[in-house]
């Protein structure tokens, strides 16, 4: 038993060591985001004389607020689109015994295998042709389309587990199929919808490839691409850029801390149970 105790302590030491490996770069970024540029250039490992919270205010006012607003808008509309279209699709696939349901499921599932890079150039041309390029729609539409396969995959598995009897009772009460969807299926499926929402938010909020190519106008850019622009604009003002990076990273970390259960379920049901 004595040996076991030593082993437990050793395990904790190893685990804490890796916590430090994760923490050190982040702590260094935060430390320097609170300094003046001069202090950072003198010694990037030293503490600031007076914490410069003004860096955060400056980063926010220098354009981050706009990128933030764009990200909130793009994420909200994309999420609404992803969840609505995916749940309707999964409902149609699972609750009707439709003749071609398997074919459609196969097509949608196949979308999971296609990566964004491969669609990049033609999408650019298509968006230009329809004059959607450099509007919010230029990223929202591809985000919705690229996330439907994965989301349908998760929702379908859940919908299949809902007992048929619930629907039969609703039919007796005179519900039509759309009422069954909104009044029975959606409320019962709220856990899986929450998981899908969080996992997709993680994707949309951080997406870079499409945002970088399809959004040229600074006034429309989302946070990931805005950060690149931001760094380019500020050049030698390192500490304000660092403050901007901290602000940009906080929302999802906070969300994870508060909703880690839904997060984990979404991530893992996607990978394991499919």
């Amino acid at each position, binding site marked *: 038993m004595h040996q076991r105790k030593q082993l437990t302590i050793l395990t904790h030491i190893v685990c804490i060591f890796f916590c430090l490996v994760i923490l050190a770069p982040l702590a260094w970024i935060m430390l320097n985001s609170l300094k003046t540029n001069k202090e950072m250039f003198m010694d990037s490992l030293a503490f600031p004389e007076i914490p410069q919270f003004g860096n955060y205010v400056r980063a926010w006012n220098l354009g981050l607020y706009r990128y933030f607003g764009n990200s909130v808008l793009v994420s909200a509309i994309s999420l609404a689109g992803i969840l609505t279209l995916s749940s*309707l699709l999964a409902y149609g696939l699972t609750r009707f015994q439709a003749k071609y349901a398997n074919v459609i499921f196969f097509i*949608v599932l196949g979308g999971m295998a296609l990566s964004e890079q*491969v669609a990049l150039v033609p*999408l650019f041309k298509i968006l230009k042709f329809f004059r959607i390029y450099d509007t919010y729609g230029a990223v929202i539409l591809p985000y919705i389309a690229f996330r439907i*396969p994965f989301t349908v995959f998760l929702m379908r598995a859940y919908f299949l587990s809902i007992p048929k009897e619930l629907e039969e009772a609703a039919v007796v009460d005179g519900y039509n199929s759309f009422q069954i969807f909104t009044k029975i299926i959606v409320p019962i499926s709220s856990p899986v919808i929450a998981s899908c929402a969080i996992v997709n938010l993680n994707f949309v*909020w951080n997406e870079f490839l499409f945002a970088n190519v399809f959004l040229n106008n600074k006034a429309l850019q989302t946070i990931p691409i805005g950060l*690149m622009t931001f760094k380019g604009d500020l050049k030698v003002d390192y500490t304000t850029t660092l403050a901007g*990076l901290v602000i940009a990273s906080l929302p999802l970390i906070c969300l994870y801390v508060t909703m880690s259960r839904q997060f984990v379920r979404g991530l893992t049901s996607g990978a394991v149970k499919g």
Partner: protein
Amino acid sequence: MKTKKHTPYLYMLPGLIMVLCFVYIPVITNIGYSFFRLSSYSAGARFVGLDNYRRFFSSDVLPIMLRNNILYAVISLIVQVGFGTVMALVLESTLLKPGASAFYRNFYYIPALISLTAVGLMFTYIYDPSVGFLNGLLKIFGIPGKGWLGDSKLAIYCIIAMSQWQFTGYITLLMVVAFQNVPRDYVEAAAIDGAGPVKRAIHIMIPQAKEQLLVCTIITIIGAFKLYTEVYSTTAGGPGNSSQVLGLFLYQQAFLHDDLGMAAVTGVFIFVITVTLSIIQIRVTRSGQE
């Protein structure tokens, strides 16, 4: 339920149309583009047969890109999947209390929540030769600093190291959940038979979670061949082409050199690799369903 024959299709149609229009059509069009010479900013296109493929496969940059993408895949497999799984086993061993184990697991996952661009930009400062964290740390131990991202021999390793920092905790999280799904009686039975923690891990835990392990392996390899943002936000492929990768090459050919045909061929190349791996992944996850 009594419904008209076309009712289910009305529910499926909007989502299906989105997927067809914005996923399938572009991907198929991309294959078509690979046989043409065309520009981003004008409509003209000239059929050139396999010329783009010839140029792609005889390009000087191709061996560098393949080396970098494969290097990224191999190191990620060893660190993220290999070491990440070992950490998951440690966290799920009986040595730690559930609360402590959950804390570590959540802590390791934090970097995966930060956007790739933010992490890329953070590390350009960490690797900075004059004010960077890394050279600052080395100085304390009296070790001379290095150029890191500015050094053509080191750049790709710096990027790979950054990714290991960001995503090892993600794989650990996925594996922890897989290990939690291993039936308790199996593990307890093995313990009663006198199997130690290492034996239990090798003979019970890992075989029981092998599907998830395979999925993690595949998503890691796919990620390695889709690599783009990490390189874009740190070195942009440089110095020279030393940290060039397929995904960034595609982007640069299309939007810097206006050579859409070459970009399309690169796309087809990535397509073949990722689709093959994805089909395997989908088969694996489907076989896990009853």
